[in-house]
């Protein structure tokens, strides 16, 4: 923006004076005073529709009530949100909205986080004078792969239509029919199948649009939201994990202007399903009859790994100890692997690439790992998988430590040949993979949602991953076992908690050295020399 300070205007809302930038609408102006002007169709990231009429306010010198969403603050304007005129209009709108609404809150997924329900309590009269027949619409309309539509709950606010027109530019939805038969639907031959379709359910103020993968699963008041970030790609969208009874039931976007505004893609929204479907690794395993199948104590794993790595380093030289780091791992974990490899005398650390499709114009990145930037910055990634496999084959690498990667599963026969050339393979992962099964030592890691950590997104913003679940069985974040083993090879003391681990990792990276976890807060911090993009 070229202008440094926008023009300010001072107005009065409910007898309180407030100064806001010119162009601010009355809903936002009132919000700065802590005054709620109720609304359904208005959404700060969509165009103004002005159709719900819930935000009608009484403005001095204007004969009619005005809608606050489309009225810009003007100098000296006197706005009353609680005058008889405004209250009567608002109660009217509430009553009108409810005459054809099914009032099926007890079986509606939106109940508990329904704006219509909330405003009915706050701004309605508590009763209805309507005694007639409600207009009936289709109730279970399949709009696309993830979204189901209930035409009777819909209040025609058109947020979903505007989202598809203005945010995704995919134009699947429109209004059809007229009067109280007006209904939202997909245009002929179209499906609501854009990559962000779940966001229509987020912005739906009522239970008209629901996500198939969540509907009927949980009452929302049982869910506890954990403010975290999505691990599905290099964007790192800010999300809430909806958790109950040790399970993530849904992921919803959390506003962050610098990262994802108010949106997430459908793939990210449903990414928790992976964690529920995979076979978890809960115990340390050691090899028995050609595979890691025998359980052992985690501490025994540390001892065994330290002893073997030390022995190989003595016998063949420290340079034969290498690692595979991961963009799926946190900054602390990546730094932990680097520390272990270096303690053993090695330096070679490969970073597998996980790219799919293309970057899109909104959020989606083709890099499907959340922390590629961290792997380079803190994890010391310095070679490709191809280089590493070659080095193994020619005997330059004899011991390999793998962090959150399944290279045997992904690189096929070539990798299996390499496995045969290794004297020692240790894998740290949250699930049982082909690599885990072929390891000499496998150590269990906590999964997404079970641990703290930090990720650096493609913009160079470092953000916190937060736990809402208890770590599975004997799992830990990888920095713990990695540094336990490193300490047995002469490394420093192991951090006692996440904050200490973060401080330890940050202190080793100039770009991070000034940071501490409280400073990252809920929205992260842009690094001074980001890898790319804005912050």
């Amino acid at each position, binding site marked *: 923006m070229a202008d440094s300070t926008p023009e300010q205007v001072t107005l009065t809302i409910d007898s309180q004076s407030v100064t806001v930038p010119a162009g601010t609408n009355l809903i936002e102006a009132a919000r700065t005073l802590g005054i709620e002007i109720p609304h359904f169709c208005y959404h700060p990231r969509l165009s103004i529709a002005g159709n719900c*009429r819930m935000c009608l306010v009484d403005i001095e010198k204007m004969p009619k009530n005005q809608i606050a969403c489309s009225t810009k603050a003007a100098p000296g304007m006197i706005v009353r949100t609680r005058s008889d005129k405004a209250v009567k*209009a608002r109660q009217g*709108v509430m009553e*009108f909205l409810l005459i054809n609404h099914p009032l099926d809150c007890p079986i509606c997924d939106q109940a508990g986080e329904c704006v219509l329900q909330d405003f009915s309590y706050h701004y309605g009269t508590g009763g209805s004078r309507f005694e007639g027949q409600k207009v009936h619409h289709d109730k279970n309309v399949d709009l696309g792969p993830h979204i189901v539509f209930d035409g009777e709950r819909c209040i*025609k606010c058109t947020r979903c239509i505007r989202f598809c027109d203005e945010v995704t530019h995919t134009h699947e939805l429109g*209004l059809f029919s007229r*009067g109280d038969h007006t209904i939202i639907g997909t245009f002929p031959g179209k499906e609501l199948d854009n990559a962000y379709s779940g966001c229509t359910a987020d912005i739906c103020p009522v239970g008209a649009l629901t996500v198939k993968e969540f509907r009927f699963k949980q009452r929302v008041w049982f869910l506890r939201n954990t403010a975290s970030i999505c691990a599905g790609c290099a964007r790192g969208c800010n999300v809430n994990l909806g958790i109950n009874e040790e399970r993530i039931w849904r992921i919803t976007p959390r506003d962050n202007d610098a990262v994802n505004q108010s949106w997430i893609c459908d793939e990210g929204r449903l990414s928790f399903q992976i964690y529920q479907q995979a076979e978890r690794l809960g115990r340390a395993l050691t090899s028995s009859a050609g595979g890691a199948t025998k359980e052992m104590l985690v501490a025994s794993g540390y001892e065994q790994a330290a002893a073997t790595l030390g022995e190989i380093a003595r016998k063949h030289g420290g340079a034969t100890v290498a690692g595979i780091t991961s963009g799926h791992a946190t900054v602390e974990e990546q730094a932990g692997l680097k520390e272990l490899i270096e303690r053993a005398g090695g330096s070679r650390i490969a970073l597998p690439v996980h790219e799919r499709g293309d970057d899109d114009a909104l959020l989606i990145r083709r890099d499907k790992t959340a922390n590629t930037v961290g792997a380079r910055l803190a994890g010391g990634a310095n070679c490709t998988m191809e280089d590493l496999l070659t080095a193994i084959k020619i005997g330059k690498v004899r011991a390999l430590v793998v962090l959150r990667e399944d290279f045997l599963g992904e690189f096929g026969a070539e990798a299996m040949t390499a496995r045969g050339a290794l004297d020692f393979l240790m894998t740290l992962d949250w699930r049982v993979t082909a690599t885990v099964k072929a390891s000499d030592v496998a150590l269990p890691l906590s999964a997404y949602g079970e641990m703290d950590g930090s990720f650096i997104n493609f913009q160079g913003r470092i953000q916190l991953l937060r736990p809402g679940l208890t770590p599975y069985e004997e799992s830990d974040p990888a920095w713990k076992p990695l540094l336990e083993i490193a300490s047995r090879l002469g490394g420093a003391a192991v951090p006692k908690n996440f904050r200490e681990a973060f401080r330890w990792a940050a202190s080793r990276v100039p770009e991070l050295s000034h940071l501490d976890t409280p400073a990252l807060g809920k929205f992260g911090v842009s690094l001074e020399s980001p890898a790319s993009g804005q912050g």
Partner: protein
Amino acid sequence: MTSQEYRPLLLKNIHRPDSTSLSAYRESGGYKALERAVKEMTPEQVLEEVKASGLRGRGGAGFPTGMKWGFLPKGPGEKYLVLNADESEPGTFKDRLLMERDPHLVLEGFLISCYAVGCTHGYIYIRGEFVDPWRILLKAVEEARAANLAGKSILGSGFDCEITIYRGAGAYICGEETALLESLEGKRGMPRLKPPFPAQVGLYGKPTSVNNVETIANVPLIVEMGSSWYAGIGRPKNTGPKLYCLSGHVRKPGVYEFPLGIPLKELIFEHAGGLLRETRPLKAVIPGGSSVPILPADKCDVLMDFDSLAAAGTMLGSAGVIVLDDSVCIVDALLNLARFYAHESCGQCTPCREGCGWYVQILERLEKGEGRSSDLDLLLDLSDRIQGNTICPLGDAVAMPVRSYVTVFRNEFQYHVDHKKCLAEPAPAPV
């Protein structure tokens, strides 16, 4: 001049043979005003004449036409004039007559108006059901273009003006100017939020003025005869000739042209032949199309102009005069109207979308004798909640008659509650 001596100005050609042809129109002196305007007057002079004439919009609101044009930005830059030929207010059929019988008058007025505001591409938005008027206008535009009365350098003046005719799909709401613009742009016909007003952001985002057919048909007259002559017709601030649409229980329903300000009763009893049946006295008159408050028989001594009817608590509106004799059940009449508005509400904003259907349900039970006394106040209260709280005037257009009918004829509504039948005695079926 008494109205008996009045010679029609707007309808002067409609009974001429072949009145829709260019040759007939020219024989009657047509297109002289256009020639005068584009050759002898500047656009500003035309605009000033229209302002000085006192011409007020004939579509319903009665807003001064010259002032409306004055809201458009001056000077070069794309802007549009749109002719609102979506006449659809129940009880109104005047624009249709002009287009069917004298399309070149409408066209000449439109071309002069385009010249006045500096519009080089005018759009005519015509109601979908008006198939004949549409064909007639299409032919008229072709004739005019062939005669260099439209298109490039009209009559060699250097003024270009293309005309495009667009047919709507038959929605009442598309008579509302911003819904009309949406429809004209190919979108669903729903009113826009105002501000911005069309004069700033109208058709395709450009400054636009939307004018009614009859309004525009007055413009050649003003240019030809001068604004002071024109302003001498009618009454102060309510100047010019006016088309009145008489329907309902009169002997001679039809379109009548008289100056603004003719007494309503003269219109009904002298010109429209009086009431249909001698045995049935006048009950009420809806003076300005279905959206306006009703006048009971004892309040019908009014003059038919904008300000007089406003003073009487109603509106001239579209001058669709619907005459009701005492065979009409007012509950049934209001139910009929409410059904129309419930059907025509665009569905965009809450009070109108939900309120119209609610009105219908209440009126249906009253009509069936299943209502109760509280329904009367409920109807009035719903009108309070709708009127003034909607995006466009359609909400007002239904709330106003509901409030007026229930207030003026409350006893009849109460009778329906108390006796479960009509107070009105229906007329016997015609023999």
